[in-house]
Structures are given as structure tokens and as C-alpha cells.
């Protein structure tokens, strides 16, 4: 029996900010979930199951969100699952929810992810003082910067590429009312003049620390027929993992990432991603990851990703817009960031992205990764139901 087609019929986000002191974590997730239900014109009673994801426990100290948040998410008396895959968690959470619908286990599933970075310190959570181990010497960006330098060496990319990505994403964020950073006076010169924190990464090329939540309502074909607004249809979804460290690991283009993309494209019948995909929401925590992922995800040949960025192909008006929402560079509640990518891809093919809508977007890719390039999760969504 073929899988049940899965439709995204409701999407909700909070306005992402540095600190939401006015709400509890329950109040924060509730806000996103209520907006997703309102978008789908459904009530709590219409939801059959809840699938939730969040950042690693030490990032904010909430160890059992599925327990604490059941009341706020209307999950009492229903199945509630928690997914746990580091920074990619928002993507893998959505995929677990989608698979429950595809397998006809549940008809309508609420999925959401959140983080209140203001209530803790992610860097602390990543640098516990494990005895006998050499402490991490470089801070948050120090983990990523050597990989960026490796990419530059491998491809000969000019130094200016990173600032082009940051300038683009921050301008895109101005068109997204939910984005955290709204830098109205941003200029390319300001990005290039910002302090060099972890050479070759500048301050303006790093992601912010945000409080926020994102929720989606996923449903079956019958649910999509009743939906008040256009659905986004899941054409393919996959997850891959690999160790954080092993001999032969390629941090610039991890195999788990390219394998994951290839699986998604095979499911969706994509043979030429550059031509067949209209918009991409990819997880770019530091600006140089845009050209790196363009290659890893098959949008450019090895060594050529930066040329797309440099030529303006990835701008909102380019022929392969990347992160029209402003991306992780503009909004980063870590636990939710992957789901925001998935949700923004769905908004594009629904034609509901507002000012940052990519004209005529029919197919979009949502991409998430995390855990030191250990986990990858992606989905491809389309404006039409999948064939067959």
C-alpha cells in the first residue's frame, strides 16, 4: 500500500527576539502552536498526536518538555513524542511527525520546536568541564572557523563571499516580520567592517541568540481537502547521521549531508536540483556555510558553490533564492531553527511567505543540521500533491 500523502496545512511562529521575558516556556510554545492551529482553522480537539523537539537539555535546563508542556499543547490523553537530534532537531521532529501521517498512524499531527536561549547559555552547555579532557580553547565560532578556512583553501573562494551572504540574509530578514534581527541600516560596508571574531568569521557573519518557537500542523489527504488555505505537500524527507569525529570525516562537505539530500531528491524525483528547486531554506549558522551547503546539497559542483553566491543567484530575486526568510543568520532559537527552515520552505510553496515570497515557488527544500555536522534532516515540499 502506498504511503499516505502528507500535507502542511498550518504554520505558526513567534516573533523571534533576544529575550521573551513576558512568557513562560509553556506560553512561548503555546503561541506558535495556537497560530499554526489558527492558520489551519483547527482546534486542539482536531489534533491526534503531538511531536515536540528542542535543543539539548543543558542548553536551557528543561529535561522533559513532553511532560511539562502536555497541558499547554493540548496533548493530555493523546500520544506525545519528543525528538532529540541536537541542532537538526527541528527538522527531524517535523519528519517524525510527517512519517506518522504517511504511515497512517495518525491523521493530523501537531509538531513544534522551541528554544529560550535567554534562560541559559548554549556555549556553557557545549563546554561542560569533563575531567581529564582538554578544555575547548576557542569559543562558539572557533569550532566552525577552521572548517570555513578549509573550504576557502579547497575552493579558492575569495574572502568577500561570507559578507555577501550575511548582507543578503539580513536584508531578507527585513521582509520577514517574524525574524529576530531587523537591521534597517545594514550595508555591505558595515558587514565588512564588523569585528573579526574568529578569523575568518566576522561578527556580522554569525547567528544571533534567540527566543522563539515554530509549529506546524501536518495532515493526510482528507485533512488537506478540508484546509482553508493551500497546502504544502511533502515530496521527500530523510535523515542521516555520522560521528562527530572520525578519520576521514569531511567537515566541509559531510557525507551524511550529501547522502541525505540524494535520498530526498530520489524520493521527490529531482534529478537537477539547481533547475528543479525554486527556493532553499538551509541551516547557515555562519555565513560561509551557504556556499559550503550549496555544494553538499548538489546545487553546485564541488568548489563552485561560492560562485552562485557571488553571482547573486541566491538572492531573493536570483534564480535559486537561499534563505528568503533571513535564515539562521537572522533568527536562531537553536531548538527551533531547523523547523523554521522546514516551515519557511512550506510557506514558499503555499504562496504564503508574504514580502519574502519567491515568485512562483513550486518546490522548496528545507534543510537542518547539527551536533558538529553529525545530524542532517531535510524535506522537499511542493505546491502539488505527490504523484501516484
Amino acid at each position: 500500500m502506498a504511503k499516505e500523502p502528507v500535507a502542511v496545512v498550518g504554520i505558526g511562529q513567534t516573533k523571534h527576539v533576544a529575550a521573551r521575558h513576558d512568557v513562560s516556556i509553556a506560553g512561548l510554545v503555546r503561541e506558535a502552536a495556537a497560530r499554526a492551529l489558527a492558520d489551519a482553522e483547527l482546534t486542539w480537539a482536531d489534533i491526534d498526536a503531538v511531536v515536540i523537539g528542542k535543543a539539548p537539555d543543558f542548553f536551557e535546563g528543561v529535561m522533559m518538555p513532553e511532560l511539562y508542556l502536555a497541558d499547554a499543547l493540548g496533548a493530555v490523553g493523546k500520544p506525545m513524542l519528543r525528538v532529540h537530534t541536537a541542532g537538526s532537531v527541528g527538522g527531524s521532529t517535523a519528519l517524525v511527525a510527517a512519517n506518522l501521517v504517511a504511515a497512517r498512524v495518525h491523521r493530523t499531527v501537531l509538531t513544534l520546536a522551541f528554544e529560550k536561549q535567554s534562560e541559559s547559555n548554549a556555549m556553557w552547555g557545549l563546554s561542560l568541564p569533563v575531567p581529564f579532557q582538554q578544555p575547548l580553547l576557542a569559543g562558539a565560532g572557533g569550532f566552525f572557523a577552521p572548517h570555513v578556512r578549509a573550504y576557502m583553501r579547497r575552493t579558492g573562494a575569495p574572502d568577500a563571499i561570507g559578507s555577501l551572504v550575511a548582507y543578503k540574509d539580513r536584508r531578507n530578514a527585513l521582509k520577514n516580520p517574524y525574524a529576530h534581527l531587523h537591521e534597517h541600516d545594514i550595508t555591505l560596508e558595515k558587514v565588512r567592517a564588523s569585528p573579526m571574531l574568529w578569523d575568518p568569521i566576522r561578527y556580522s557573519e554569525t547567528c544571533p541568540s534567540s527566543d522563539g518557537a515554530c509549529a506546524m500542523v501536518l495532515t493526510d489527504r482528507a485533512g488537506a481537502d478540508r484546509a482553508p488555505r493551500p497546502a504544502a505537500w511533502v515530496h521527500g524527507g530523510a535523515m542521516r547521521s555520522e560521528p562527530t569525529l572520525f578519520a576521514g570525516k569531511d567537515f566541509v562537505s559531510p557525507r551524511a549531508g550529501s547522502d541525505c539530500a540524494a535520498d530526498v531528491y530520489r524520493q521527490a524525483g529531482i534529478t537537477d536540483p539547481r533547475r528543479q528547486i525554486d527556493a532553499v531554506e538551509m541551516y547557515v549558522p555562519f555565513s560561509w556555510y551557504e556556499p559550503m551547503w550549496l555544494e553538499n546539497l548538489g546545487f553546485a559542483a564541488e568548489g563552485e558553490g561560492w560562485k552562485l553566491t557571488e553571482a547573486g543567484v541566491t538572492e531573493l530575486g536570483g534564480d535559486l533564492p537561499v534563505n528568503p526568510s533571513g535564515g539562521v543568520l537572522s533568527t536562531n532559537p537553536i531548538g527551533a531553527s531547523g523547523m523554521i527552515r522546514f516551515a519557511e520552505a512550506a510557506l514558499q510553496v503555499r504562496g504564503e511567505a508574504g514580502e519574502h515570497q519567491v515568485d512562483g515557488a513550486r518546490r522548496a527544500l528545507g534543510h537542518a543540521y547539527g551536533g558538529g555536522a553529525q545530524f542532517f534532516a531535510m524535506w522537499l515540499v511542493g505546491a502539488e500533491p505527490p504523484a501516484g
Partner: protein
Amino acid sequence: MSSAAPPEQLKAPLVVEFPFTRSLGPVQSAFLTGLRERTVLGVRTGSGRILVPPVEYDPETAAELTELVRVEPTGTVTTWAWNPEPRTGQPLATPFAWVLVRLDGADTALLHALDAPGPDAVRTGMRVRVRWAAERTGAITDIACFEPSGEGARDVEPAPHTGEFDRPVTGIVAEARLDYTYSPGRAQTRYLHGLAERRTIGERCPSCAKVYVPPRGACPTCGVATTDRVEVGPRGTVTTYCIVNIKAKNLDIEVPYVYAHIALDGAGLALHGRIGGIPYDQVRMGLRVEPVWSEDGRYPDHYRPTGEPDADYDTYKELL
């Protein structure tokens, strides 16, 4: 080198503690501020039940709850367990009973401590009352504990309450602490014993022949135990790096400094270290380096240039 006998197991305490902050939202803010003012608040659900402590969302209907009520500081024990050896941070330092108390006017019970001389003095159904802390800040500890009360049960209708107080408490600090005993395991212990002699000893995968440094006892690619011990280095090659310009907390290193991936000669993957003995802006990929040990350090303090010609990119491009 063959596999050595298992060395003595290393152990050390690992304390994970952090002062997580919590924004309370309207309901928890009213509840905790109320405690500061010797007022216990509950919330009325859609079906009319009074929940104490109050919650923000109705467990039955998921509706947002806003109707706060004041309940009595007296109540009835619904169940209990004796705690003969209180730990640090628990409500009382002397043996006490953990109790669930249904306050007069409430339909649900609150978990707290009951100050009683012994388990024989505690029973389900006994009447108790709040003993308020002398200094109250807007926290659950504003109830110091419960104590036995001679009064009978009271059937009271809880009074509506706005939940408004002067100087509301809007956030709390939730100190979290986990105490572990950490043991690094046999492979890392062998590695650490080598480092104590200023030797870097990896372990080779019998299947793919890659040498893991630090060793973890198994090859993550092949899924087999790494058996042969192989000394690597001491010299190595900087494969990639960054220049750190911002001072990290808890690190006593002057910025800027270079944080590098270093492939020790013979190792199958790079480890991380600081580069010294050369101006930071002269470090480059391919630079040949050697460890510099401090007197008491378990690890090299940093690596410095050996003066050899730079390594060719092709020799280390798989080790970035």
C-alpha cells in the same frame, strides 16, 4: 606495540551546575508573588475544579486559564512518605515527611515537606497548615514547610483573586546541579598514562588501519575494537586554524591567538591545540609544529613551529 594490561581506572567528580533563569508568565508569577504575601492562589478550570499549584492551560480542554482564586493555608494530607535522611537543599535539615497536601478550597494536592517528629506522627487524612518562611522572596520555599494543625476540615468556597500584587515576581533562578563520578574508560586512560610520559599514543583500527588520537577503544567507521597501540608525533602539521580575537570565559589566554587543527605524524585525524612561538598572523596551513609541555599540565600547553619546511597540501588535505 601490543595491547597493554588494563591500567588502573581513573575517576574524578564531574559537577554540572547552572543557574537557569525562568520567565514565569502570568499564572506562575501570581502564584509565587502570592506566596511572598502569604497568599496561596489556585486556578479554576473549565469544569470548575481548583488546581493548586495553578497551571496556565486546562489539562482537560487545553484552554488558557486566567480565573485565579485564593485558597486556605490549611489542608489535609492525601498521602505521604517518610524521609529519614534529608539531603542538602531539601526543605528541612531534620527527618521529615514528604506530603501531598490538599489545601482547603482546592481539588488537587501540592507537594511539600511536613515537619513531624517521626513517621508515627504522620497519617493520611491528618490536618496541616502552612509554616511561612520568615523571609519570603516569591518562591515555593516561601512555604518553609507544613506543620500539624489541630483544626478540623473546613469546607470553604475559594474567593476570586485578581492575581495582582505590588512588585510582582516575573522570573526565578532555577539552580540546577548534577553530580557525576566520571571515569574516562580504558582507551582514554591508556592515552592519559602516555601523556603523563609526554608521549602521544593512539590506537590503530585493524580493519581500515587509521590511527585514532585520542583513542576511544573502537573505530567509529568500521565498528571494531582498536587493538594496536601506536605512538604518533611528537611533530605534526597545522591542517587548518582560526585566529581567536575574543576572550572566552574561564580561559586565561591573551588574544589574539591561533586555535588549530594539528595532524600529528602518523595520526589518522587531527586534534586541536593552540599555536605559540610565532606571531599569530604568520601561522599558515601546512606549518610544521611540535608540542610544548608545561610543568604540571596533562596536555601540551601549545604547539610551536619546528622550523621545517611547510608540509605539502596534498599530504594533509584529508586531515582538515
